[in-house]
């Protein structure tokens, strides 16, 4: 199967699309276009996208009445007419340089589209293939594209359906069996431009048996417009593989970002995911981890720092389907001003997943009197021999610690910063790549000022 197809011209979609019942407004217009456009694409993809589109017309956009979106009303955010277009590519090598990471392969995506001329892939080992998912070379079809939607397709999440239906851009990485990719791969995703725009990156990571990879992703928005990014990434880590995945989101108050992730972790495989989010206007991270292989290990770490009137919602679902696996989850929030944070983490242990060792923790510091956090840890356990626990704490900065620092000559503002940085450190320390960790620490420094 191939995913190669014409890139959609979203401007045209908006102008001549038709409204599809049940989905309402602008999204319906896109779906109308997707259906029309798919006439020319590969039959397998056409079917997948058609199915997703038709499912989506039944669900519509998630809103307040959906339990999973109780505090993040996507429907409301997408009321406006968002468009996406091909412009915004006037970024040259000089202006992209500060965003690139040294000692890494940098794959650059500007406004969703792969920018080969801005990427540097000299360091990419020839064993590893990476690039534009929708231009995957024929030789890789079986390995990569056959897995398209194998994980996301299990979800009935409307945003996943929407992403699948509209998928036309994104990255893929494939690491072959027994190969350790020593050079980390950095995906730089920059949106820019004015007006209201929607982006829909769809990515796929396929790690064969006993392979290793460090994947770092940065999301920036440099434009002055309002953007909505609905990204989805499927990550398959086959038996005994090990993935380090770091995600940094710094898109500013003008951005809205719904990020979906689907990890499928094989027998004896390990994954460590660290998501750090700074002050997005609206950020929703859906991190889904399926553990069908025995003796697998998943670590999820998250940090979100919010000010102003911004909103961040972290949703995690860890599904234990096999015995003798472990999952450890730590999410920390620093919420200031009138910002709102959400954490909803669910651990689901299937009956066969005996000896599961699962832990989940959410800790929050409210730095503003009107800042709020809604936190909901959930355990659903259907096996009888497991160790599962969760905990959550929310409070202000510790007054005793603050006074302790002040009494040593450190002014209150700096003392607060020192404490917030210490609070954040537990999460940033989970980033093993020094270059990426330094970027994150610098941003923590900026955002706790």
């Amino acid at each position, binding site marked *: 199967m191939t995913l190669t197809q014409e890139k959609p011209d979203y401007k045209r979609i908006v102008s001549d699309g038709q409204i599809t019942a049940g989905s309402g407004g602008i999204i319906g217009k896109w779906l109308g276009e997707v259906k029309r456009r798919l006439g020319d694409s590969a039959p397998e993809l056409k079917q997948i996208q058609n199915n997703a589109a038709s499912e989506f017309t039944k669900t519509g956009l998630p809103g307040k009445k959906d339990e999973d979106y109780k505090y993040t009303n996507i429907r409301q955010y997408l009321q406006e007419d968002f468009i996406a277009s091909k412009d915004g590519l006037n970024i040259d090598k000089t202006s992209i340089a500060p965003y690139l990471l040294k000692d890494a392969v940098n794959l650059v995506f500007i406004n969703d589209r792969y920018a080969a001329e801005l990427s540097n892939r000299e360091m990419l080992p020839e064993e590893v293939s990476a690039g534009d998912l929708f231009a995957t070379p024929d030789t890789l079809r079986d390995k990569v594209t056959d897995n398209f939607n194998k994980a996301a397709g299990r979800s009935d999440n409307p945003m996943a359906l929407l992403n699948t239906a509209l998928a036309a851009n994104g990255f893929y990485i494939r690491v072959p069996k027994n190969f350790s990719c020593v050079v980390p791969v950095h995906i730089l995703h920059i949106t820019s431009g004015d007006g209201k725009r929607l982006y829909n990156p769809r990515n796929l990571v396929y790690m064969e048996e006993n392979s290793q990879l460090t994947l770092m992703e940065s999301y920036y928005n440099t434009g002055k417009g309002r953007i909505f990014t609905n990204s989805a990434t499927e990550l398959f880590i086959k038996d005994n593989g090990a993935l380090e995945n770091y995600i940094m989101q710094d898109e500013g108050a003008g951005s809205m970002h719904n990020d979906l992730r689907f990890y499928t972790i094989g027998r004896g495989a390990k994954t460590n995911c660290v998501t750090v989010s700074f002050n997005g206007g609206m950020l929703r991270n859906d991190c889904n981890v399926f553990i069908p292989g025995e003796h697998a290990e998943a670590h999820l770490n998250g940090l979100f720092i919010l000010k102003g009137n911004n909103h961040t919602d972290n949703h995690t679902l860890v599904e234990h389907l096999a015995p003798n696996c472990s999952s450890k989850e730590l999410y920390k929030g620093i919420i200031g001003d009138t910002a709102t944070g959400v954490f909803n983490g669910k651990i689901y242990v299937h009956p066969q997943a005996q000896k599961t060792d699962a832990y989940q923790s959410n800790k929050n510091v409210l730095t503003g009197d009107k800042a709020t956090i809604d936190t909901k840890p959930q355990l659903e356990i259907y096996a009888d021999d497991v160790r599962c626990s969760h905990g959550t704490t929310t409070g202000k900065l*510790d*007054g*005793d*610690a603050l*006074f*302790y*620092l*002040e*009494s*040593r*000559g*450190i*002014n*209150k503002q*700096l*003392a607060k910063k*020192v*404490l917030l*940085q*210490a*609070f954040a*450190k*537990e999460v940033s320390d989970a980033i093993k790549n020094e270059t990426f960790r330094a970027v994150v620490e610098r941003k923590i420094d900026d955002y706790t000022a």
Partner: protein
Amino acid sequence: MNQMLEIKDLKVSIEGKQILKGVNLTVNKGEVHAIMGPNGSGKSTLASVIAGREDYTVDNGSITFNGKDILELSADERAKEGLFLAFQYPVEIPGVSTINFLKTALAEIRQYRGQPPMEAKDFLKLMKEKQKLVEIEANLTGRSVNEGFSGGEKKRNEVFQMAMLEPALAIMDETDSGLDIDALRIVAEGVNKLRTGENAFIVITHYQRLLEYITPDFVHVLYKGRIVKSGGRELALELESKGYDWIKKEFPEPAV
């Protein structure tokens, strides 16, 4: 000027309840003052108020330090002026290393005093020198501030910080509480090594024990928010033998 700290008719309350009911105290350069008293007499409140804790309301009186009205200053400014509080319960601060903590504090203090920033190698040299002086293990200062420290280690870390910051006046709030005799001796020896003719100490303690190691010039008894007795070293011994009941009997209803 010889006079360092002058507290005049200090009345302090917390949540509407008056704790200090008119404290007077003068501390000169080179002196060691011990403040003793039964539980709940206001000893820790006095220490906290001098150091600048904001939870308390100063209803009346003044605190002058080296000629400055420090009630107008924030806690960090008081530290920068040369005040130091050794905490009764040193706070654990996970994620902040003692080295970075002290580096930040020293940088702030030096900047306030118009001194140039300290070179990294000079700072490390100073750390080593002071670690040796107060007999604190280097591995403790490499860890997060007080995290997982034993009671004795925490108190030793207080003395180490005091050695690093070289305050003019150090207030030691029940530094002896929870210490075994060996830890007590090490802490006290550290303090004695830091004594010069230029600095001063206020040692707050419930027991006379610490004063066997740190010899005070003056002993004050704080009871129900007032200093009811002052004297020399012998007052501490008298308290030890007679117990606080002696004070309680003598001052059943302190005059208002």
